[in-house]
């Protein structure tokens, strides 16, 4: 054999490999496509409402477990991935790695994505039930719990959901324009969303500008006067809802120092021994930030810090106090609580004392809330979930739910992953047992497409999204960011159809 020839061949292969990712994708696509044509017409057709983590994980388990099931995901926006795109903080890109798995699912031959379709408006749930053997509702929690206190509608008061939507490019929040001209911000709630917001308000812009944060938010944060963020909770240090990763990020945030009230930590160190490991480590870190004497390096960091953050415990909001012109928030009145009971059952009880804190920005981060989607679907207004048994919607056949709308807006993507796998498992069991009838032929997406066309709705496919994706990536590159998100649905549609 000629070594020269072999070497040449190697070089060509190397070139081919390094320069033609498209080639591989196309090969793969054809490969799988070939299989899809053998799917019988009477295969089970499942429709998923909502293209966030719950929807994609449900779809993943369905297509992976059964080789004949056909899954269509309907999403209101032209872009997929829900809170992975619009909720996960821009400085947590590693969390967004789940998008790779979702993309693989969406590109699967038996799975299709249909963006820009508003279920409940463009097409009803009943119509989807006609077209599919089963409908899985995984549309999440687009509302938020309100504090229900006077002054909540003053300028300078925002829900964390809207604030997060603003810096993450959710189209409906693009005009939020939060006023960041004050020095102190108060965040109500001590969960991970609260810490995300605190981190966004206090992070050096040099860090944020390398993330996929929207440019308008980055510009506003660069001009921000906020120097101090207080994170308020109704219970004590042993009940904080955030997790240790997020707390550690606060502790290590460059240019900031913790500003806590040492008195709020009295007696906490003594309880450490009795705590289970996660709570123990979290509390130890909290104590370290709050009351421990810092080492030399940390001391220097704190002395140089121009911004501060701190928890405030045992406080419940009573009223947002207005400025003299009654337009803006100027402070917040807090009721002072004390704790009653032990362990997990500990309750906050008002002492009757109140405290006023001066602040120009109030962000309530006390939880998301699911909303009903269609009169045809049962909804538990008190718990704000769809009543279900292991993902089967009660009193209906062929309706399922997964994710936040199934169990309430708590937990993290991995919790939703398990929960969605569970719902998919339930659905497949029902097919197996025959309680979900899949013997009739259903039109699936063809039926729905016809309806949508008649109504002038043009869905966005996954390959359309890929056009938006590459345009966003291109725009990001010019700014040294992983992407620059489009904020306008019209623009998204324009790029998708170009």
């Amino acid at each position: 054999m000629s070594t020269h020839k072999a070497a040449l061949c190697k070089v060509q292969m190397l070139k081919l490999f390094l320069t033609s990712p498209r080639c591989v994708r196309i090969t793969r696509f054809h490969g799988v496509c070939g299989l899809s044509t053998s799917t019988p017409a009477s295969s089970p057709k499942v429709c998923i409402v909502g293209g966030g983590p719950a929807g994609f994980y449900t779809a993943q388990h369905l297509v992976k477990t059964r080789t004949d099931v056909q899954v269509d995901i309907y999403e209101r926006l032209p872009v997929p991935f829900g809170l992975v795109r619009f909720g996960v903080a821009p400085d947590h890109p590693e969390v967004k790695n789940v998008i790779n798995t979702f993309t693989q699912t969406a590109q699967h031959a038996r799975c299709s994505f249909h963006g820009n379709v508003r279920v409940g408006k463009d097409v009803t749930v009943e119509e989807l039930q006609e077209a599919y053997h089963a409908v899985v509702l995984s549309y999440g929690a687009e509302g938020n719990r309100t504090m229900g206190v006077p002054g909540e509608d003053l300028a300078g008061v925002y829900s964390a959901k809207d604030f997060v939507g603003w810096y993450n490019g959710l189209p409906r929040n693009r005009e939020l324009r939060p006023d960041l001209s004050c020095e102190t911000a108060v965040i109500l709630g001590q969960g991970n969303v609260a810490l995300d917001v605190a981190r966004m308000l206090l992070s050096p812009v040099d860090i944020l500008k390398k993330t996929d944060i929207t440019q308008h938010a980055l510009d506003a944060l660069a001009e921000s006067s906020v120097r101090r963020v207080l994170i308020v909770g109704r219970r004590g240090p042993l009940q904080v809802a955030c997790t240790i990763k997020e707390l550690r990020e606060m502790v290590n945030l460059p240019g900031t120092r913790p500003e806590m009230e040492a008195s709020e930590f009295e007696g906490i160190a003594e309880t450490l021994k009795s705590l289970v490991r996660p709570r123990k480590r979290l509390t130890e870190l909290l104590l370290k930030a709050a009351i421990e004497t810092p080492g030399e390096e940390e001391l220097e960091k704190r002395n140089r810090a121009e911004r501060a953050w701190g928890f405030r415990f045992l406080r419940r909001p009573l009223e947002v106090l207005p400025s003299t012109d009654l337009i803006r928030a100027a402070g917040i009145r807090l009721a002072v609580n004390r704790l009653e009971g032990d362990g997990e059952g500990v309750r906050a009880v008002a002492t009757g004392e109140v405290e006023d804190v001066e602040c120009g920005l109030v962000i309530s981060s006390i939880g998301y809330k699911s909303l009903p989607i269609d009169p045809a679907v049962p909804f538990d207004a008190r718990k704000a979930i769809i009543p279900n048994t292991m993902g089967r919607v009660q009193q209906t056949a062929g309706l399922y739910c997964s994710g936040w709308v199934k169990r309430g807006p708590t937990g993290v993507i991995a919790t939703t992953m398990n929960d969605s796998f569970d719902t998919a498992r339930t659905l497949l069991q029902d097919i197996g047992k025959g309680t979900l009838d899949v013997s009739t032929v259903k039109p699936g997406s063809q039926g729905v497409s016809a309806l949508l066309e008649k109504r002038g709705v043009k869905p966005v496919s996954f390959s359309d999204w890929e056009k938006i994706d590459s345009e966003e990536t291109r725009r990001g590159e010019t700014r040294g960011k992983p992407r620059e998100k489009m904020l306008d649905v019209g623009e998204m549609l324009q790029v998708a159809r170009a």
Partner: protein
Amino acid sequence: MSVASASIQFFTRLLRYRTKCAVPFHAASRILISPYLPQVFGGNKVLLGTCAQPLRQSRQQMAHRQQSWGQICRDRLAETGSLRSEEKVTVYFINRDGRKITTSSAKGDSLLDLVVEQNLDIEGFGACEGTLACSTCHVILDQKVYNQLGPITDEENDMLDLAFGLTDTSRLGCQVCLSRDLEGITVRVPDGVNDMRRSDDAGPTL
């Protein structure tokens, strides 16, 4: 040796090298996907991780963030002059259903790499692709093996705190780097990959 076989050999090595060294983060995305692919495209198992567009983006996103441990493992090996060893380490996996799987992977791989490469069917394993942002690759080791592995970083412990069924000998699979000393270890995958991050409004964090 024919041109073809020499080339195939080179190509295979190249692919492995790229997968090992250039794209450590995305390995995990392949686990869930590989069953979708016809076996005839076996090569895709490797190619997918390197070529899909979103994968490259997340690599850029990650550039300024922490490296995956797999990469750190390999960097360490590189320091000692054996970047990529063909030497195999045998690992016995006890899967969620209690079944024992005998498998092996190259020295320098993490347990997460192994699960991905060997196509072990553990759905949801390694959701964040080895970037210490979740606890879905939680594994339980024997005490002796656990002791052998040495200290654990705060960041790994932070994630382990959220793992379902945490034990005293729990580790994250993405952080356990295979070495010759670990030949023949038994790794138990706990039932359920539940991330127990409980909080009132923990929200959209993995």
